[in-house]
């Protein structure tokens, strides 16, 4: 009985090796003090909806989402030089909400052909305006609590911008890849790219304000790890 369990465990382990896909993980950190974020107060207080919603405590931009020990969120990490491998059509849709006149989340990454669903949880109007560089531009009406809007993008593009012109502080950035090998760093600075086939790659980490860093990596059967450190000068 014990032996067969061991064998089974070995078998599963072996299958994992044959499938040959490990996770690529790492942590992104920030050195130095980022510039102060801008308060939306001056813009939001003129808006009757927002002045009630936030009652004097207005949110700010969130360009540098940094933890207590320099963990840096909202960094887009992706393998370079891969294309035409999109599994977006069969991937689960990603949802982005508009809540309190902000996009939640403000940083998104999807595949080409993958559905992005844009909701409006607010009781008031937004216009959902994309300003892409590679994909076609669009600008749509979304009334308070109105029906969801669904987007797909055919071409890969970094930081495709979503904005609302009714509320000129509302932005979100959607990076589109034509392969599944990408991830966003979380509030703990960590990222995981799942099931990367073994091999040598260039891994890139891009922060919207701090630019891109790359690393040459080798992914083995049990994955690989690579950290990045950004610096504000």
């Amino acid at each position, binding site marked *: 009985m014990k032996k067969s369990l061991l064998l089974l465990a070995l078998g599963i382990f072996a299958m994992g090796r044959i499938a040959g896909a490990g996770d690529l993980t790492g942590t992104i950190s920030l050195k130095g003090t980022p*510039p*102060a*974020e*801008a308060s939306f107060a001056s813009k939001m207080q003129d*808006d*009757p*909806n927002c002045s009630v919603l936030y009652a004097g405590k207005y949110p*700010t*931009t969130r*360009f540098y989402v940094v933890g207590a020990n320099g963990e840096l969120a909202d960094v887009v990490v992706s393998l370079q030089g891969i294309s035409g491998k999109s599994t977006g059509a069969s991937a689960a849709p990603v949802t982005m909400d508009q809540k309190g006149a902000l996009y939640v989340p403000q940083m998104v990454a999807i595949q080409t052909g993958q559905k992005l669903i844009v909701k409006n949880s607010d009781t*008031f*109007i937004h*216009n959902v*305006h994309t*300003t892409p560089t590679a994909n076609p*531009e*669009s*600008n*749509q*009406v979304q*009334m308070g609590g109105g029906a969801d809007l669904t987007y797909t993008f055919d071409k890969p593009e970094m930081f495709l*911008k979503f904005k*609302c*012109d*009714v*509320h*000129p*502080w509302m*932005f979100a950035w959607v990076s589109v890849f034509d392969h599944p090998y990408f991830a966003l760093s979380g509030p703990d600075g960590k990222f995981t790219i799942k099931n990367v086939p073994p091999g040598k790659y260039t891994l890139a980490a891009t922060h919207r*304000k*701090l*630019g891109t860093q790359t690393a040459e990596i080798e992914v083995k059967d049990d994955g690989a790890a690579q950290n990045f450190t950004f610096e*504000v*000068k």
Partner: protein
Amino acid sequence: MNQKYNPALFWFAVLNAVATFLLIGLGGLVTSHEAGMSVPDWPTTYGYNMFLFPVDKWIGGIFYEHSHRLLASVVGLLTTILAVWLWLQDSRKWIHWLGIGAFLLVIAQGILGGLRVRWQLDWLGVPHGAVAQTFLVLTCSIALFTSRWWIHSAAEKQIYVPRGLRSHVLYVTILIFIQLLIAATMRHQHAGLAITDFPLAYGKIWPATTPEAIAHYNATRPAGTFGNPITAFQVNLQLIHRLVAYTIFLGVAAAAGLARKKLGGRDPLTKFAVFWLVLLSLQIVLGAATIWSNKAADVTTLHVMVGASALLTGMLWWLVAQRRTRLAG
């Protein structure tokens, strides 16, 4: 040529010109508030007939964009009436066509604005801005041509304005128009201020625009610049805007000096030229204030309106000078 002064027609033309000036201000507010795309549909507004769009939905950027569309409809109506009125009541053939020209231009302007929204062609904001300024010059010229002074000036002895002075003013006015094109291009980058200090630029007389320098500006730009990252092109554009501004200022100062010398300090055109110089000084202060306030919407919009006034002043000065010289014969 036996046109009689028609006060009702003149004041109607003035009303149209004033409404156009306010419309430029409102258009400036739309851009200053980055609200040009806040109403995605046209000619409807969020699916409503634009004249029936409920007031409780005039929120945020929609307020500016929607009122801009409404005032534009008013100006369109006024211009149509003016064109018909001129056609029926004015005996000057050329002014009939000027009225038709204004009518066609206001229609074109409306369609340009509409297409910009419908096709998400934000850059159409640049020709839209240029046509707006041209249209303002046209409506104000019509008001001038129907004024008592214009019509009765033939009866009085006029003082000749030297050709050199007239050409000088015309060239400076053309330069102001070019400046408005540069400025409109700047504003439709939606990238926030490309240079954030004044009178220096990133602490230098001429800042670096290498890729490293641009990356550094982007990383360290003060917060509050929500738009796209800036590019070397945008930095250069603002530098050119500043240089052209100084050139225009010197040109207008020279015009005022020349007018004083050639026409004397008491001539109305000399006073008008001095007023022009005051406008330009104000414009440069407002340009600086635009930078120092990190593009506060009201300051920036004033800068747009005074810019339009500077163009207009040059053009009207030149027209009056031409008329006087013709009649001094």
